[in-house]
């Protein structure tokens, strides 16, 4: 990679911000949040983040959109069936791998 900013500086910034978010309430705050909106917002944020990161990002996570689509389909089916995190991930990889083998045949 060709960067003006060194890698260690990125890593340092990531670590410091992540730590500060965790540390501040533990050290300074001792109060409960009563605002329903703020509580709801904080509850929803992780799912919103995961959703936005997964789609459309997942389509560029393998070497073709087709194999990624097969992987996504497998992940949706396996997770809908209530399978574990690990099972879903392996199913997605296997489907993507197989699709990458099959698609060039057409």
């Amino acid at each position: 990679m060709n960067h003006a900013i060194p890698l260690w500086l990125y890593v340092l910034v990531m670590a410091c911000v992540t730590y500060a978010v965790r540390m501040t309430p533990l050290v300074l705050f001792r109060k409960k949040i009563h605002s329903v909106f703020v509580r709801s917002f904080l509850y929803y944020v992780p799912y919103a983040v995961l959703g936005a990161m997964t789609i459309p990002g997942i389509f560029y996570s393998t070497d073709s959109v087709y194999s990624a689509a097969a992987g996504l389909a497998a992940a949706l089916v396996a997770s809908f069936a209530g399978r574990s995190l690990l099972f879903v991930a392996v199913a997605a990889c296997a489907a993507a791998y197989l699709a990458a083998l099959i698609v060039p045949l057409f």
Partner: protein
Amino acid sequence: MDISRFSFRDGLKDGMPIALGYLSVSFGFGVSAVSMGIGWLAAALISLTNVTSAGQVAGVAIIAAAGSLGEIALSMLVINIRYFLMSISLSQKLDDSCTLPRRLLIAYGVTDEIFAVSSSKEGPVGSRYMAGLILLPVIGWTIGTLLGGIAGELLPYSVSAALGIAIYGMFVAIIMPVARKDKGVLLCVCVSVLLSCLLKYIPLFSGISAGFSVIICAIVSAAAASVIKPVKEAEA
């Protein structure tokens, strides 16, 4: 508040299953980081210093795209903001053994799973228990990344390309069970996905980087869901 009866060993015991889960999730992160051009050692260092899945994936993507430090800092803030809520809750759960220096150390290990397990204990928890609870998951998280990173560099391209999807598969697996039960989460995720597709594919928004896109999607969709389906006290 008095002193908790849970020992360091109790913490280790409760941390074991979390560590095993982390080993596999972080393996996926390692593979994905290496595929974006981050070395396996740097990937492991990121895992050791951050201990958070979504934040790290977003961070690595920003590094790979040579984003600015401001962008990466803002992304970490928004993506990890949930830990703020967890730490507030945890601060009321810690007993008197948790002095300021110990709180500073405990803060490092507040993850979704560690928070969930410590919250589920009856009564207050102490610093020794928290140390035990945090230790193994952090080791599992770092070692998993290391193994995934090395595997990503050694495995043939056809295999490592397919493994790149692993971490996204896990994201789907995290969202699905909650979205099935909770209409608010389903709504929030649908709005977020729709927005992120719009930001990605409409040429007008092509100047918005992936990192900022996640921030915008997260804030708008979480705010929308909070207004339409506010969460009642007990659920959050």
